[in-house]
């Protein structure tokens, strides 16, 4: 192997699995350490720098960080990262004087933002303090986008949402509610310096089966949720079927229960392994006695005198290949299931009826705009897209990252600079050694299992639509969960010329991830390691040649606990534990001198 270049910021960044997996690259271990010290406001602000909405995301984030968490590979359960984010938010106190401020005067550049969702709010959050005059146009009467209209209040309380949106509006952002943009061309004619489209993927998919239009009791999931959120819909029939098994379906079934439904079934076409909903959302729905029915493919709606009475399904059987993919399927029968209402939650699509064909913005065959993946600029200069509007439905944390990137582009565009001339990430390493057996982080491995979130009792939670189900972590749960974090950002830094090849690090390593071997190809080396292992997507660190024998030190990054025992045991400090801070530059930092 070629010696690993750890000066490339991406190498150590990738070791921090959670941060690497997070679209906005939130420095998770760093904020968990702040929580452990009781520095909740600092933890909140550190979060806010990258993900802008810690209170919201601490409840409803899609959590790509958690499946990536190294703790999940060492044992079974990852650190409850999302819940800890909520802890930072719940206990932060008043941080208003530490948030970015409305500038004393603006820079005269006007930016129009279409849609008041997380993407537009992130762009405004980045640009308004720099002096940009940001105006957000929203067709509904409340801001928040899907965070308000589609995520039920029992998961995301109204107050949490409003607080974080208001913080951005206080930076001098104009919000025009009830103002749908009906023409891109006329918007472009209003003289804005740049336009950002963050209008989401607002069109719920339809299911055009026989009987679809014979009744008004078949609802499109996201429209129905919006109608409930704005209190236009206040009740539902006793028996409800939800079609589809994504996260929207989970919100629909749980909302139905709160509107008075007695029996709610979620109908899935395929087996459980193919569900799109997050595991925790499925668990929360099942805790509320929602029945999830697998292998039922919708066939038709049954109506009698204009009233919906049931739905016909084909029962399915699937054969899976060795990789768990469906290799064949067959219909084994047909059943009719009674219902009063059906809610379709089978996906969303982009819809831009307000962008004229000759506005200079090109779309692909699926009506998704052609957007540059780095700059988020459309085919028309000065018009940027982000969030679900850019590449189709994703989630809030992706929308935030799109917002950050679009803000950089808008800033460069307004300065007449090249959009691709973005500052690269930087890596800063700080020593953590305090003395004998003493490091500036909690390095000892804590064997505790993942803490369970406490929920409001089942009977109580249905009393009102907006009773938040999750109660947050108790002080004891916080104290335990923070210690489960392995501090993967405290990097193992190796200095080959100092190594004496005494094997002390190899012997002390509790997960046997170190080896001193004769150099060879990565495939060969993986077979002769102290604990031979296939890759699992994780790198091998390869050192320079060691001075005494010319062999090399190999570290399998896969399950390193970052416990620092190698560095503690090393007589020459060839191994050291150093905190690796990945510096990611948002719009406001783009005008700094580029690193040498």
């Amino acid at each position, binding site marked *: 192997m070629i010696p690993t270049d750890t000066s490339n910021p991406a190498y150590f960044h990738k070791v921090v699995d959670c941060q690497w997996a997070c679209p906005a690259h939130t420095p998770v271990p760093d904020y968990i350490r702040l929580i452990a010290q009781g520095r909740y406001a600092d933890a909140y602000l550190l979060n806010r720098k990258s993900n802008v909405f810690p209170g919201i995301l601490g409840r409803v984030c899609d959590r790509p960080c958690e499946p990536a968490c190294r703790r999940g590979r060492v044992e079974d359960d990852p650190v409850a990262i999302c819940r800890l984010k909520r802890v930072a938010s719940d206990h932060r106190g008043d941080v208003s004087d530490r948030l970015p401020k409305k500038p004393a005067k603006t820079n005269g550049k006007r930016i129009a933002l279409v849609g008041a969702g997380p993407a537009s709010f992130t762009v405004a959050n980045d640009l308004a303090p720099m002096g940009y005059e940001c105006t957000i146009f929203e067709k509904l009467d409340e801001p928040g986008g899907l965070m308000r209209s589609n995520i039920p209040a029992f998961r995301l309380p109204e107050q949490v949402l409003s607080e974080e949106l208001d913080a951005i509006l206080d930076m001098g952002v104009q919000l025009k509610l009830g103002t749908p943009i009906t023409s891109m061309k006329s918007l472009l004619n209003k003289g804005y310096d740049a336009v950002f489209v963050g209008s989401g993927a607002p069109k719920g998919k339809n299911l055009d089966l026989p009987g679809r239009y014979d009744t008004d009791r078949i609802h499109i999931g996201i429209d129905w949720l919006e109608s409930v959120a704005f209190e236009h819909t206040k009740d539902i029939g006793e028996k409800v079927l939800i079609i589809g098994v994504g996260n929207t379906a989970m919100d629909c079934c749980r909302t139905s229960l709160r509107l008075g439904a007695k029996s709610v079934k979620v109908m899935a076409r395929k087996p459980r392994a193919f569900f799109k909903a997050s595991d925790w959302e499925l668990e929360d729905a099942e805790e509320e006695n929602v029945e999830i029915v697998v292998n039922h493919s919708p066939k038709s709606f049954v109506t009698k005198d204009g009233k919906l009475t049931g739905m016909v399904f084909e029962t399915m059987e699937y054969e899976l290949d060795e990789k768990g993919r469906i290799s064949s399927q067959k219909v084994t029968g047909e059943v009719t299931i009674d219902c009063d209402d059906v809610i379709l939650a089978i996906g969303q699509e982009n819809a831009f009826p307000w962008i004229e064909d000759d506005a200079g913005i090109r779309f692909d065959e699926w009506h998704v705009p052609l957007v540059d993946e780095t700059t988020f600029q459309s085919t028309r200069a000065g018009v940027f897209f982000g969030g679900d509007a850019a590449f189709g439905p994703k989630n809030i944390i992706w929308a935030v990252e799109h917002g950050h990137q679009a803000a950089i582009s808008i800033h460069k565009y307004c300065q007449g600079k090249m959009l691709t001339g973005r500052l690269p990430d930087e890596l800063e390493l700080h020593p953590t050694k305090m003395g004998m057996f003493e490091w500036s982080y909690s390095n*000892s491995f804590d064997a505790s299992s993942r803490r369970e979130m406490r929920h409001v009792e089942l009977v109580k939670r249905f009393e009102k639509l907006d009773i938040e189900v999750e109660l947050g972590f108790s002080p004891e749960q916080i104290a335990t969960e923070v210690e489960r974090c392995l501090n993967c950002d405290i990097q193992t830094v190796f200095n080959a010329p100092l190594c004496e090849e005494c094997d002390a690090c190899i012997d002390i390593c509790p997960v*046997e991830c170190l080896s001193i071997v004769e150099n060879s190809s990565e495939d060969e080396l993986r077979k002769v390691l102290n*604990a031979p292992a296939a890759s699992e997507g994780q790198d091998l660190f390869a050192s320079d040649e060691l001075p005494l024998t010319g062999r090399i030190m190999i570290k399998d990054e896969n399950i390193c606990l970052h*416990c620092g025992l190698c560095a*503690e*045991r090393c*007589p020459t400090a060839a191994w050291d534990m150093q905190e690796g801070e990945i510096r990611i530059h948002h719009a406001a930092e783009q005008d700094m001198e580029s690193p040498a």
Partner: protein
Amino acid sequence: MTSFVKPRIRRKNQPVNELGLTRADYEGAMSTLCAGCGHDSVTASMARAFFRLSIEPHRAVKVSGIGCSSKTTAYFLRESHGNNTVHGRMPSVATGAAAANSSLTYIGVSGDGDSLSIGLGQFVHAMRRNVNMLYVLENNGVYGLTKGQFSASADIGSLAKKGAPNEQPPIDPVSLALSVGATFVARGFSGDREQLVPLIEAGLKHKGFGLIDVISPCVSFNDHKGSTKSYAHTYKYYHKSVHADFVPPSKDIKVKYDEGEMMPVELHDGGVIRLRKLERGFDPRDRAAATMALAKAQQNKEILTGLIHIDESHPDMHELNRMEERPLNEIPYAELNPGAAKLAELQKNFR
């Protein structure tokens, strides 16, 4: 945190031996030796050898004397028997234990101070008796626990940490062992685990006394320039003569040997030590040749390592003394203690 412990983690896909135990099951308490001590590496090699041989930890006995090296019996095989004896007296305790129960696996851990000064007499007599045990001598040339005075194995001209040279000739445990008829004599280096682990495996399986002299640098007091027992010096003058691979009896050993390259030595339990010559004209089964090779290496200031001599034909202590093979704790009480009348009858013979 004021001290540290190595956490025990049952991770997924951990390698296990024939008993289903992991390597961690063969470890012990945390070492309190200096970071980078060669002894810790030897400890790990011993744990590794017991793991590979699938020896049940509770069927092993660790014995040691006094010194840094002798502390290390606490750091491996946490679930086995052990006795930390008086300085230099480990061989007698091991002899007694082996006499009482020959069915256990005995490993003695000692150092150059414990074995070559205060315990020199005990050490050579255990070899003469051919006690069935493996004796690991962790050799660093200094008294580490008392801050670095020269021990009896320090080479002439080797410098102490403050610069004073050693002027007395060293006692070489390997030459000594050959001269008193030891039946398994090897030398290893804590820094070469690939060589050391199979040597320990072979030594544990050898019937009779096995000595492994392990060069094990003292990082605190004898790892400087001018020392002949430092990591750097040992790596530089290190000379491998014969590599030993241990093949347990359960494995298929019908491998074709190219005589002259590979030399198989069959052990009492059916296992085989496969010797791989790294040098021509040297056969470790020949004591005279081994003595010659050793003398030559000493002359060239090389550190000859590997399995230097092996003799499977010599009877061990039990056989020599026609002792009871059954462990004493398995012998019925009446047979073990025939009573006062029988004793009186026996004593008559001596009147």
